[in-house]
Structures are given as structure tokens and as C-alpha cells.
């Protein structure tokens, strides 16, 4: 009996290790495939090079790095205020019944596949920008809006949970002192939820940087550094997805190297999220 239990415990531990095994395999395979080209070109030249021209053997991904950064920042600029306002409304202002239904609707928004988001952006947003704002329509702006909407559910649901975790007594104390609801939210709820909100923002950032299909369809994918939000842009993820289908040899390696850079950015964000989570506990 006892032996059987020990055996089961070890079997479970082995199964549980599969997650870390997958992670290790991902790292090993992508680094193995992508690092030779970085070694050959030099890391600095790879990430600061401004020319991406596979046919001429030029692999500089600075435009894509900046592209990912711009698009992500833009998405945060749209998604965070909207998400925060929605979460505050749902957690602090709406009647509980309405709040439950609305929250459910926002969860459904999270379920819509990224290709569909991208497609709606392609047929509605891109022509709209072209006609009313300017430029070709395929742009940083279009990508930022689509991504901003896509990260909304993440921001809303994380912030909502954080607000709900703020003890009711805090609010009652403020309200008893004669503060209005908004003052209470501003002076008690938001400060108490600060690190949770930061965590939500980091999570949304990870989503935005990693998103691929939606961005491809609306960003225009030009490999130059955009100087205005109305210009087309290519992100790290789109760079991989666009050319994987036909790339061979060094070109393909360079795409995996792009993957390495993306992976490292995500790893840094994860670490940041962990630090924030830890600081909250203290």
C-alpha cells in the first residue's frame, strides 16, 4: 500500500514535469536553430540593423523591434484606460446583476479568435483610417486599435478581480467620512489595487507583443521604421509568420533568431510580472 502511494507520487511528479520539459524543449530548439545566424552577424548588428532583405542576405530587425514596441505601446494607450474604466464600472458602480452579465459579455470578447479581429480591422478600420485620417490605412494606428481591443478582456478581468479583493471595510470607512464614491475609488480602491493593475498591464503587454495574425492583417508589414502612426509597420511576430512559409537556409534561421528576440522580451516581461507579484505579497 505504502509503496504504491510512493510510486504514484513519483509518477505524478514526472507528469507534472512535462510543462517544464516542454519549456526546455522550446528554448533548446529555437535557440539552436536561431543562434548561429546571430553569431555570424553579431548580436548588435542583428538587433540594430535597419535593413531586412533576405534575398541580399541582410538581416537587421530593428524596424520590427521598434514596430512591436510602437504597436504595443499604442495598444496599451487604448486598452488600459478603457479596460480600467470598464473594470471600475463593473466592480464599483454597476448593480451586481448587470455587472455579471456585462462581465460575461467581455469574457466572450476574449474568445473571439485573433484572425477574426484582424479581419474586422482589415475590412472596417483600415479603409476608415485611409479615408478619414490619412495614409494607406494599414498602419501602426490600425494595429494599435485592434490590439487595444484584444487586450481589453485581459485588463478588465484581472483589474476586476483586484478591485473585488480590496476589503469592503476600506470603502465603508471612506464613505462614512462623507467622501463621494469617486473619491473613495480614487483615494482608497485604486491605491490598494496598484500592483494588481500593474500586473494586468504587464499581462496585456505580453498579449499584445505576442499577437500575430490580427497584426499581420492590418499593419501593412513594411520593413522600415515608421515615423508616423499612419505608416505601415511590421512586428517581430508578423515577420516570422509572413516569411516562414517559404524561407530556407539562412533566411529561415534569421526568422528563428527573430523568435529568440521575441522569446527574450516575453521572458523579461514574465520576470517583471513575477517581481511585481512578489512585491505585492510583502
Amino acid at each position: 500500500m505504502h509503496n504504491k502511494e510512493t510510486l504514484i507520487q513519483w509518477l505524478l511528479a514526472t507528469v507534472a514535469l512535462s510543462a517544464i520539459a516542454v519549456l526546455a524543449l522550446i528554448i533548446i530548439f529555437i535557440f539552436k536553430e536561431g543562434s548561429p545566424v546571430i553569431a555570424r552577424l553579431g548580436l548588435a548588428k542583428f538587433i540594430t540593423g535597419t535593413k531586412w532583405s533576405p534575398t541580399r542576405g541582410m538581416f537587421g530587425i530593428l524596424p520590427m523591434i521598434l514596430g512591436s514596441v510602437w504597436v504595443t505601446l499604442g495598444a496599451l494607450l487604448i486598452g488600459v484606460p478603457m479596460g480600467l474604466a470598464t473594470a471600475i464600472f463593473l466592480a464599483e458602480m454597476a448593480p451586481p446583476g448587470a455587472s455579471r452579465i456585462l462581465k460575461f459579455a467581455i469574457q466572450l470578447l476574449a474568445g473571439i479568435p485573433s484572425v477574426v479581429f484582424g479581419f474586422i480591422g482589415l475590412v472596417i478600420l483600415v479603409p476608415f483610417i485611409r479615408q478619414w485620417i490619412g495614409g494607406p490605412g494599414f498602419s501602426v494606428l490600425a494595429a494599435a486599435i485592434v490590439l487595444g481591443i484584444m487586450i481589453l478582456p485581459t485588463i478588465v478581468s484581472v483589474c476586476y478581480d483586484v478591485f473585488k479583493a480590496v476589503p469592503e471595510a476600506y470603502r465603508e470607512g471612506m464613505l462614512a467620512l462623507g467622501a463621494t464614491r469617486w473619491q473613495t475609488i480614487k483615494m482608497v480602491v485604486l491605491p490598494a489595487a496598484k500592483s494588481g493593475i500593474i500586473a494586468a498591464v504587464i499581462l496585456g503587454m505580453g498579449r499584445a507583443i505576442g499577437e500575430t495574425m490580427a497584426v499581420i492583417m492590418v499593419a501593412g508589414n513594411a520593413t522600415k521604421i515608421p515615423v508616423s502612426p499612419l505608416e505601415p509597420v511590421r512586428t517581430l511576430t508578423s515577420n516570422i509568420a509572413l516569411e516562414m512559409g517559404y524561407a530556407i537556409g539562412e533566411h529561415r534561421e534569421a526568422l528563428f533568431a527573430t523568435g529568440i528576440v521575441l522569446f527574450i522580451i516575453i521572458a523579461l516581461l514574465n520576470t517583471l510580472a513575477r517581481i511585481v507579484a512578489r512585491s505585492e505579497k510583502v
Partner: protein
Amino acid sequence: MKMTDRRITLLFTCITGLTILILVFIIGFIMVKGLPGLTLSFLLESPKEMGRTGGIFPAIVGTVLLTGMAVVIAAPVGVLTAVYLTEYTRDTWLPKIVRFGTESLAGIPSIIFGLFGFLFFVIYMDLGWSVLSGALTLSAMILPTIVRTSEEAIRAVPDAYREVSFALGSTRWQTVTSVVLPSAKPGIMTGVMLAVGRAIGETAAVIFTAGSSLRLPGTLLDSTRTLPVHFYILAREGISLENAYSTALVLILLILVINITAYAVMNRLANKGR
């Protein structure tokens, strides 16, 4: 004072309304555009001329096969991992590593899973572009979701149940299988369904591992095309916008049904707890 309060409430109500409006608009738009083309023959026929005409039957089969297999692989691994993390964590370092692994995996973008699946399953394991490669890649991708939701569901099982079971002379494993998992089952099912919803809509991880063949897969080693991949190719290459809309409608309806069922199960749980 009261003025600003009212204004801010109004503003936040509007922003929430806008968020909901976006959802309604997306679903409504796809519905209106996609409904005319959505016929029984569209669902049951094979595509012709790259999908310009004909139906989407092979893509439906491909989606069901890929997602189904991914769940069959990931669900047991995920649930057992959650069991290990919640019920067997006497040692300190092992669960920490496991948790680090699942959390990190959860943050990895699907395109990276696609790259990895291509290198590892398609090339290294020599499975080619196939149902199997796609399903294995997807299963790795949904594993963290299943672990996290199962863990939550298992932690919600009252300790008193475990104590009673132990006091009746059950071993830990007997307690897990006969008391803990049955109580956590609805919560675990919700998590699995949410993971399925995510897998169905996935494109980037699938397109480089399962390929995009339009033919019905005869074996698990044949390439196949899922609904989102088919939709992406139709829309991006401008093959047929009409069929793209109808494909998107099928995809969205599928996901909505699964997600609504999942949340309904979850809500029933919450109500029972009260």
C-alpha cells in the same frame, strides 16, 4: 462634488457600453455578412477552386480532429499536474519548478509554439505537416490553462472532504480519485472547455504544424487545414470574401457555444456554492 461623481459614472458607463458595443458589432457584422452563405451544403461539401466555391467540410473535420486530440493529450497531463501541485506538494523545490514551467508556458505567444512545433514535431520527430504535429503543438499551448483552472477547482474542494476520506482509511490517491476529483469535476470541465475554445480559434501555432491541405485527412500523419487557417487564407489572399465571412461565422458560433456552455457550468457551480 456630486457633479463630478455623476459625470465620471456617466463616462465610465459609456466606456463600458463601447466595449460591449464592439463585441456586439463584431458578432453582428460577421452574422449579417456570413449568414447568406451559410447553408447545409456549405458545411458538408468540400471546397472547390481553393475555396472560392464549395464548402468547408474538410476544415471542420480538421478543426475537430486537431482540437479533440489536443484536449485528449493535454487534459490528463494538466489535471494530473494540478493534482500533484495541490495534493502532493510536501517537497519544496519540485512544485516550484513545475509552477515556474506552467506560468512561463502560459506567457509564450502562439507564434513561438508554432515555430517550436515546426522544428520539433514536423522536422525533428519527422511527423511532417500533420494532424498529429498540430495537435501536439496545440496541446502544449493549452496545457497551462488546464493546469491553472484545474488547480483552482481542486483547491475549492473543502478540506473536510479530504479529512473524512483519510479518516476512513483511504490513501491519498484513493482520496484524490474518489472524493477530490469528482467534486472538482465541473470546475475542471469549465477549464477544459475554455481551453478548447482557445484551441479552436488558434491560427499561428497551427498553420506551421498542421499545414493547410484542403483534402480530408486520411490518417493522423496527413496535413489538414483548420477553420481559422482556412478563413485566414480566404481573407488574406482575397480568394472569396463571401466564403470567408461564412467560415468566420461557423468558427465564431462554435466558440461562442463552447464558451457559453463553459460559463453556464461555472455559474451553476457558483450558485450551488451559495
